[in-house]
């Protein structure tokens, strides 16, 4: 036990003395969350929109004036057919198109209700979300105003279509995404790198020739990063709760428990990488290409998995971050309990056991 503690102490010294890396590891989540915080408070102001007015009647014209008069929007272009919309989006100038159907005014007159369609470019989900919200608000204002002096209320149904990213993933995705990424970085990459560093320095040879059990060496290497990750999770959660106002709707205990599970998965992965890599560069390369890219691309954090082609959807199931991401979203944002995420938890547990077994089996008690 004393050996073990002394090893852990040594690891902490390594981390502590390499101040630059330490600050990056501890500061990165903070910076990411804060940058995102700024991105969120970006207010919508004079956003350029396009209008496809199929009615061209009094009501549609006054709705258009309403939109143009608000400080949020500025009509950039009038379109003449539905097909033009996508072309305009591709030009990138507008992010929102408002489609007013034929007989808008007469629908209102005769049936007391009409429809307006909002089409948003949701490749930037935050902006799309905000624009449609504001536009809806303006339309509702208009509806209220024209209803004012009537007995039967007018109803304008706003139908929202999000092009490119219909689920409108974004805002609240960011916090779970950062959590998954930071944990992977700290646990997988740093663990792999420090173990490989001992190999490079020749100190691993001494460790192996010492009476210390090889498994102990490996576990002792992992402990400091577990602690570091815990610090990171806390700082992310505190910041997101109090700076970004992202609520923790579910059980905090459950969230922490699931995070520790994910940390263990990441640590096992790090150990696995360390046994395969001979140099620090290789370890870093494997962690980046093998872990980060899939995490960013295939965990559902940046791009919705549902829209991916089948092969990618299948591959995404092998990315641990995907499961963790689902769990965090469910617990933190949707506030769902364990009963809804036991499947994901089971998958992560299975992954951890698998990686850990392979890593320990592959960890050599000898060289080469």
């Amino acid at each position, binding site marked *: 036990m004393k050996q073990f503690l002394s*090893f852990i102490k040594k690891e902490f010294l*390594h981390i502590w003395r390499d101040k630059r890396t330490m600050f990056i590891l501890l500061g990165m989540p903070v910076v990411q969350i804060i940058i995102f915080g700024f991105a969120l408070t970006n207010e919508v102001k004079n956003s350029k929109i396009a209008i496809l007015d199929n009615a061209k009647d009094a009501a549609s014209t006054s709705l258009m004036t309403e939109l143009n008069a608000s400080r949020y929007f500025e009509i950039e272009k009038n379109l003449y057919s539905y097909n033009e919309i996508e072309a305009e989006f591709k030009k990138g100038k507008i992010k929102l198109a408002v489609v007013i159907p034929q007989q808008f005014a007469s629908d209102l007159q005769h049936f007391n209700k009409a429809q307006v369609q909002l089409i948003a470019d949701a490749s930037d989900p935050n902006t799309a979300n905000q624009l449609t919200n504001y536009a809806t608000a303006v339309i509702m204002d208009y509806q209220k105003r024209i209803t004012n002096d009537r007995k039967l209320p007018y109803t304008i149904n706003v139908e929202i279509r999000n092009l490119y990213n219909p689920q409108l993933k974004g805002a609240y995705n960011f916090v779970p995404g950062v959590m998954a990424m930071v944990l992977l970085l700290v646990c997988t990459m740093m663990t792999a790198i420090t173990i490989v560093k001992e190999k490079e320095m020749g*100190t691993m040879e001494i460790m192996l020739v010492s009476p210390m059990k090889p498994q102990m060496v490996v576990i002792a290497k992992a402990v400091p990063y577990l602690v570091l990750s815990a610090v990171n999770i806390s700082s992310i959660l505190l910041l997101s709760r109090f700076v970004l106002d992202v609520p923790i709707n579910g059980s905090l205990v459950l969230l922490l428990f699931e995070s520790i599970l994910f940390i263990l998965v990441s640590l096992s992965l790090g150990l696995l990488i360390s046994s395969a890599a001979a140099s620090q560069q290789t370890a870093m390369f494997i962690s980046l290409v093998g872990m980060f890219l899939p995490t960013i691309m295939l965990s559902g954090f940046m791009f919705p998995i549902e829209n991916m082609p089948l092969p990618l959807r299948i591959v995404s199931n092998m990315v641990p971050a995907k499961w963790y991401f689902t769990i965090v979203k469910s617990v933190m944002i949707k506030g769902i309990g364990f009963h809804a995420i036991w499947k994901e938890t089971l998958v992560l547990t299975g992954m951890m056991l698998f990686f850990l077994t392979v890593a320990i089996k592959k960890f050599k008690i000898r060289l080469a």
Partner: protein
Amino acid sequence: MSAVVVENIIKTYGKKKEVTALQDISFEVKPGELYGIIGPDGAGKTSLFRILTTLLLADSGNAIVDGFDVVKDYKEIRKRVGYMPGKFSLYQDLSVEENLNFFATIFNTTIQQNYDLIKDIYQQIKPFKRRKAGKLSGGMKQKLALSCALIHRPSVLFLDEPTTGVDAVSRKEFWEMLKRLKEQGITILVSTPYMDEAGLCDKVALIQTGKILSINRPQGIVDDYKKPLWAVKSPNMLQLLNELKEKNEVEDIYPFGEYHHLVLKNNIKKEELEQWIRQSTTETVTVEAVRPDIEDCFISLMKN
């Protein structure tokens, strides 16, 4: 009982075993001996040391260290040997004291427990005990590394090329330290590419491309050298070398410090040799019979 017994060790690398590192190596080290494995880079020294310290498995053959089999009883061996790998460089970001303390704990001991063993060595670096290992000079690093390898009072100490890349002064000091350790009864196996260090060992094995060329006491190796050996010198050394190389009587000639060493096929008298050399060169040539040293023996063994 021998401290180390190596029997018919073969080690190859590569998928098809195409690289042979050790070809049928056998030798024995007695307790308390300072045993030198002398050979150039690529001779197989590191592979041999790794097999003996249980870090590598041999393809075939047996090895016993301190009475334990290197394969079956590797755990026992790991408790009782000390090892300083060739590229060993300590933890650069830990101080001298932290390094030593760390290794002591890893080996289940404390600095105090075996202080008498490392006292001589450690006292030289003690004034710098708060300095980071990365900031030490080559010689001091080596002393710290040796202290770390000794901290658990190993029964057998394996030092893989401890003096490579170290200047002549530090090398001398290092060997003096080894001599004192030997007096404490520790068996030491040390490998080196420097032939001149062979003379400082009790016994040496000369090794080249995975084969042992000779095993003997250093004096014994020199005594085994039976060819007539002369040292020759002239103002134009390159010319002398090239001219004598062509002669039928010459088996070998090679630069050796300020002289060339001339190996002849047959014994002749000094006057005879002088006269014979004078025929081929106009320069004044100095000729002296010399006793071979380990390097002469190594060259001769290598060329056979």
